């Protein structure tokens, strides 16, 4: 009888212990959550595209940050740009931030459309970095109503890569190209084609990047200053850019491509002599090692008929944005401490990635002043950063790519003989109809 009681008691105590054990556990968790935040690493997720450029750059930032901040674990996820755009759109429009990262890379051309469409989805990081330290033109696309949402990353500063050997054959020197207009550029191209038989420039009929660069150099854009409506008809810069484009075609100095690989190949195999494009093209140019010393980079040409036009423009470029989700403070701190202020990091970006940032104090660093042997000892980074500071600030607005599609079609019409005013008026009509 005694034994039985003991057994019963034991089993009851066991059950009691089980239940009390559970409750004890939950209590324990509740108690330590506060402490955990301090000790456990906070995870900061980053989405970016292009493993060799953006992701690589972010990895450098992660390394630099990890030295002093073991409590933050930065996870970088590579996704195609289209995927990122799509997932951001689906995620933000559904209102759930679940599955979205803390930090996301957004192309400057698209930034405004995201920030305007999802006003509360992004976390203002004005306090986390000093905006005045960055290139002026980057601040427009990355801010809304004076609040900075994006931390400027790479500079899309444009220049013209030219084959010095072809130039010389045509009787030109690099010095002759330092302060030219697009008309001069075409003239030189004609001469080069004449003497060497090589085309002067390679263009894709479906990509109006060159038009965008031209109009930005004059402080103009497809859209009005508020970024909301199209500014095509009566846009003098755009009109001149169209004319330059047609002149290039008429001068028969243009090679046509439709595929990026073919585009790069056109330069690497020496069949085209110059490239007006963003500085990120450097890596593609230097890939042809046999052409070492045969290239130079000259300032972007001006629009002859536009007084506002300068020798600086931009193509592409993107910035880092903090999404308004849990961990945003840590993410903002991380960006502020790395891309927002770390001069050494910018030197590494130059040497390891070839990315030129838009952080002005970084220009004092050594990597910025180092000559590049491929370009005949030219201080290309220093040149690019100098031009970066001169890029006119324009508002890319919300509809850059929508207008671009219209421009592509209208350019075709223009080349086929339609009058320029008519072309722009038609384009304006279509754009107004589409983006209203």
């Amino acid at each position, binding site marked *: *009888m005694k*034994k*039985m009681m003991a*057994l*019963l008691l034991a*089993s009851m105590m066991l059950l009691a212990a089980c239940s009390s054990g559970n409750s004890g556990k939950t209590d324990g968790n509740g108690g330590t959550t506060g402490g955990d935040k301090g000790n456990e690493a906070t995870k900061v997720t980053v989405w970016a595209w292009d*493993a*060799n450029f953006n992701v690589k750059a972010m990895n450098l930032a992660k390394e630099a940050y990890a030295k002093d901040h073991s409590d933050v674990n930065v996870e970088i996820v590579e996704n195609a740009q289209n995927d990122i755009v799509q997932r951001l759109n689906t995620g933000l429009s559904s209102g759930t931030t679940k599955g979205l990262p803390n930090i996301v890379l957004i192309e400057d051309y698209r930034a405004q459309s995201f920030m305007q469409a999802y006003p509360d989805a992004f976390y203002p990081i004005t306090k986390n970095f000093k905006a005045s330290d960055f290139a002026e033109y980057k601040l427009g696309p990355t801010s809304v109503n004076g609040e900075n949402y994006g931390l400027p990353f790479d500079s899309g500063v444009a220049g013209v890569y030219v084959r010095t050997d072809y130039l010389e054959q045509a009787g030109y020197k690099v010095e002759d190209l330092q302060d030219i207009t697009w008309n001069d550029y075409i003239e030189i191209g004609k001469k080069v084609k004449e003497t060497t038989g090589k*085309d002067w420039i390679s*263009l*894709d*009929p*479906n*990509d109006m990047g060159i038009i965008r660069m031209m109009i930005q150099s004059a402080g103009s854009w497809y859209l009005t200053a508020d970024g909301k409506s199209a500014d095509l008809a009566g846009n003098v810069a755009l009109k001149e850019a169209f004319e330059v484009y047609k002149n*290039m*075609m*008429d*001068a*028969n*100095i*243009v*090679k*046509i*491509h*439709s*595929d*990026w*690989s*073919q585009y790069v*190949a056109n330069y690497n*195999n020496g069949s085209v002599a110059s490239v007006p494009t963003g500085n990120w093209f450097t890596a593609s140019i230097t890939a042809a090692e046999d052409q070492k010393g045969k290239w130079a980079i000259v300032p972007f040409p001006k629009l002859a008929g536009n007084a506002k036009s300068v020798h600086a423009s931009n193509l592409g470029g993107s910035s880092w944005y903090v999404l308004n989700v849990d961990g945003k403070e840590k993410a903002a701190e991380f960006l502020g401490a790395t891309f927002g202020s770390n001069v050494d990091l910018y030197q590494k970006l130059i040497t390891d990635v070839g990315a030129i940032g838009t952080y002005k104090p970084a220009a004092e660093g050594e990597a910025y002043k180092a000559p590049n042997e491929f370009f005949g000892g030219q201080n290309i980074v220093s040149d690019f950063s100098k031009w970066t500071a001169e890029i006119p600030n324009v508002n890319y607005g919300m509809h850059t790519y929508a207008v671009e599609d219209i421009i592509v079609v209208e350019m*075709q019409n223009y*080349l*086929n003989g339609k009058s320029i005013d008519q072309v722009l008026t038609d384009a304006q009509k279509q754009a107004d109809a589409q983006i209203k």
Partner: protein
Amino acid sequence: MSKLFDRFKYNGLFIKMFIIMVVSIIAVSVTTTWTTINVSERVFTETFSITNTKVINQINNNLDTFNYSIALATNKLAQSGTAREFMTEADGSSLANFRSFYAMGDVMKRINSGLDAYGIDITVAGINGRIFASSGQSPLAMTHDELMQHPLTLRSLESPRRILYQHINSKHGVPLLVATRPLSDRTTDKVYGMIFFTMTEKEFAGFYNTYTSEGNEVAVISGNGTIVSSGRKEWIGTDGRELLAYVKSMEEAGKPYMNVAIQNREHIVLSRYLSSLDYYIVNLIDKKTAIGQLTDMPSIIISVGVIVGVALIIVFLISRRLTRSLTRLVKQISTISKYEFHHKVSVGGSYETRELGLAFNGMLEELQDYVAKLVQTEKQRRNAELEALQGQINPHFLYNTLASVKFMVQHGDRERAAETINALISLLQNMIGNVSETITLSQELVNMKNYVLINHVRYGERIKMNYFIAPDCLGCHLPKLIIQPFIENAFFHGFNAKAEGHIYFMASKEADALICEVVDNGDGFDMKTDQGAENLKSSGKRQLFTGIGVRNVHERVQLLYGESYGVEINSHPGEGTRVKIRLPIIKE
């Protein structure tokens, strides 16, 4: 240790029963669980194979639709004059080229619209050195010359009328699937271009991704045995010939599914051949993972454990209850047989044990009755014996007494002779009556005096006899001839060494007993040596008055009145002997 053994001995039944129950409960629960898991596993496998066959069919349909889109796009491109011109014409002026590229762009846009959903890039390469990529940046990332000399193209040219599905890794190491088809002139069969439909493996995986889960993987194997696409990234591009062999043997045998060990893990394999792509879609279900989800082992173990535990507790309590009364009974019986014959067992517990206890008690009672009767009979027999002995008068005594009387008469001492004869008569009279009767102490006193008188007559008066009797004792009854043997003994043995002395008879009440003492101041004897005791016992050759001796008195008193009564003898050499007789106080 012995305690433990005892416990085991008494609880043997319980322990055996309990062990058997424990073993059977565990055996039953384990067998049931195992069987249930087995059956559910089989059912699961069947169900899985049915649903997954449907899934594979669905994937198959998707891929067929995809293949159809590709074929349609190819035909459109093959029939497009613009495309053909783009691929064959020589480079013209910039403007002419621009128009040609733009026109081609329009064609491609139209064609691509059918393939938009697949995230596919269409690249065409013409014999004139032109390339057009629908996405602007083909994942192939190859220049015209690289493309045209690539094995993709060369293989495709071997069967120019077919769409060939091939797989390569891009320059950045991204696995790609490429559908290729040469474009050739219908009449001359001269190839004028190539089409490449390129999609990343990741996008291709979209065809089946939604149907897979952990442990339920899909692998797409090309006809030559390479794993082209899979949810398991590490499998992509690896040799799948072993798997393909399984799949083929399965197809030949006409089985819907097959169990195969892959990488040392049991898998259920389902497959479907896509002739249009020359791909095998293989569905691999990792049994452990899939069924592991089905049977949550820890929770099964816990619930079975709890059930077994509860069952054991119940069994323990019930069997304990059943055997406890029995055990108690057994324990009692065993102690009773050893120590406590007069106790009864307590009756309780279940019906069986109650009956057993009752039967045992009944038996014990009868046994006790019988034994009591036996003792009684024995007593009676002994009593009768003693009585008989008491009734006998030793003829020597009579002879000697009568001889003494004769001498007295011859000497003319008639007075004394008459007195002696009177004493003898009185003595005999008393004897001849009912032996078992009791007489009062005063009557016994008369007898004693008569006996002493006769002895004085026979042996002279050197031993004096004195009587001290409490007056309240005179009325007390006592058996006949109880005191006489001790007086006789004192006369004949007490004074062998000493020439004379005294014998005292004393009677008094002590609590509820009558104490009679016969004390002499004669020789005495050493209680430790046997000599005196010998004297007490061997009265055979003495001239005893009756057949009863000193020794028998004690026995008789005890037979009559019980063990608290009897005779006690004390003696010291040279000091005399003291005999104490304890009797109950009986008053008629």
